[in-house]
């Protein structure tokens, strides 16, 4: 059984890569991992010491005991993961971080807002927490559309949860960015859980302050240990407090977040 920092050998059982965008990785852990939405894993594509550190990726879903990751092609680490042949070995440290903790529901709707690959950490939430809307905002274009379609095939979204795909180029029903899409919904007493690019998070936080709805934001930082030891990821919270993104986070309530710490 995996403890909070177990190192688990896995194999890459299938992948779908969409051009230079990134892709979906389906990874079979050789021991069971018990995780909750919002938690993440550090992925190590090999025993080589270069690259040295794991790459943090949100656990997006579980399919027949396999873990689904959405991986954007960013630099070397994600490149190695995406280019690995099926059958290759990956090691993961998981589950890491605190599960998304939705404040006790009062009356308003629960809205999830994923920008680009930021959707990963939100995808599993509707299945365990009654969700009204899930917005997935991305740039658009053929690669994005294919990725989104393939991805949604892997996750089970309960009937009650509306899925709204928003694209900047109008590839989807909704044309506009994540903030536009969010604003198109009724935000009265809403709780918004958002994960994605810094610009989007700043927009959500600003709107929440203006209009008084609750938010939880997924914060990103470079990480070394992923389990609260190295203090590489620690940030200021309001009230002169400190928190580790990898341990107390990655999701923090908007009211605790110091604006400057959204990078």
């Amino acid at each position: 059984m995996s403890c909070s920092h177990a190192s688990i050998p896995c194999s890459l059982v299938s992948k779908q890569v969409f051009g230079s965008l990134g892709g979906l990785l389906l990874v079979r852990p050789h021991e069971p991992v018990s995780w909750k939405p919002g938690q993440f894993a550090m992925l190590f594509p090999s025993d080589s010491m270069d690259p040295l550190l794991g790459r943090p990726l949100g656990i997006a879903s579980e399919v027949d005991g396999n873990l689904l990751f959405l991986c954007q092609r960013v630099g070397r680490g994600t490149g190695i993961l995406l280019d690995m042949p099926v059958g290759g070995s990956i090691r993961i440290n998981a589950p890491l971080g605190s599960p998304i903790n939705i404040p006790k529901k009062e009356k308003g709707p629960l809205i999830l807002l994923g920008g680009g690959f930021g959707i990963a950490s939100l995808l599993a939430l509707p299945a365990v927490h009654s969700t009204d809307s899930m917005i997935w905002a991305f740039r658009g274009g053929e690669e994005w559309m294919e990725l989104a379609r393939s991805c949604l095939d892997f996750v089970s979204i309960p009937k009650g949860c509306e899925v709204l795909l928003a694209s900047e180029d109008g590839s989807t029903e909704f044309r506009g960015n994540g903030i536009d899409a969010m604003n198109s919904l009724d935000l009265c007493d809403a709780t918004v859980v958002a994960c994605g690019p810094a610009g989007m998070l700043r927009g959500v936080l600003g709107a929440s302050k203006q209009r008084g709805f609750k938010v939880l934001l997924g914060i990103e930082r470079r990480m070394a240990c992923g389990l609260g030891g190295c203090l590489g990821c620690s940030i200021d919270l309001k009230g002169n407090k400190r928190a580790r993104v990898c341990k107390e986070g990655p999701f923090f309530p908007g009211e605790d977040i110091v604006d400057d710490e959204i990078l």
Partner: protein
Amino acid sequence: MTKSFNSPKCNVPSVSVGPLMLGSPLVVASGIIPMDADVWSSIEGCELICSKGITLYPRKGNRGNRLWETPSGLLNSIGLENPGLDVFMDCLPNLTETGKKVALNMAFSSTEEIKRMLDLIYKRGISSLISVLELNLSCPNADGEGSIWGEDPGRTFEAVSAARDAWDGIIWAKLTPQARDIETVALSAVEAGADGLVVANTWLGAAVDIKTGLPAFDRVFAGLSGPAVLPLTIRLLFKLYGKVPVPLIASGGVCSAEDALEAIMAGASAVEIGTCLFRDMGIPKKILEGIGRFLEDRSIGSLNELVGVAHRGGHGLNRGGRGF
């Protein structure tokens, strides 16, 4: 009595590091794992754990980037973020309850600070919970324009003496590899009363974020750790072994049983494990098992026999020619 030193099934290589007996030569390095009893108990293969660098008062550490990956290495600029001595002392009983021994890694900007911290520990009556006092000589001192204690033999002598005066237990001086003349610094530390020398700490490096054209770190320089520095650590061990009358503890780049054996043969009595724990918290157990197998295969009864053998012609390991 130790509660639950989780030893692997095979031959456990215990060691004496000067007066300190350890069930394993492996020590968790400072700044690597959280002060969290659950994590401490879960680490197998290490009996002694160094705390995060502790200062008298809480510190927030450095702003900006704190981590930067390099080839087989890691630059860090945490800046000694820590909750301060009081919180450390609050946690201490919980941590030792796990059955692990604790080395208090102390950072300080003046000798007065060293004394005050040790005083406070005695006052709380918990000095016996601290197995080793590890003095971090890589931190800057307040006088001397923030120069690094361990770069200078005189400052090193001052710091270690201050601790020696105020502390009855074992003191390890954690040397800095930036010392211009590490042999002289090492001798000063021993003269001032250090019971062991940790060889060493992170190596100063730097990086540029080419996307911005700016230094990756706000303070420009940062500490390099991880496998990349192993050959540099081994060199320092070769330089210091036999020159000082106290045990050496390796720190820098050890990630495998082979690495640990290299460090031991080069002169280390114990080996700290740092950065590689970021990859796998299960590493110490694997290293310990690997060392156990090595000893078994060669019918070597005690790991202490291997300490420094590279200075003594390989001590009979050299069977069947050298090869290349």
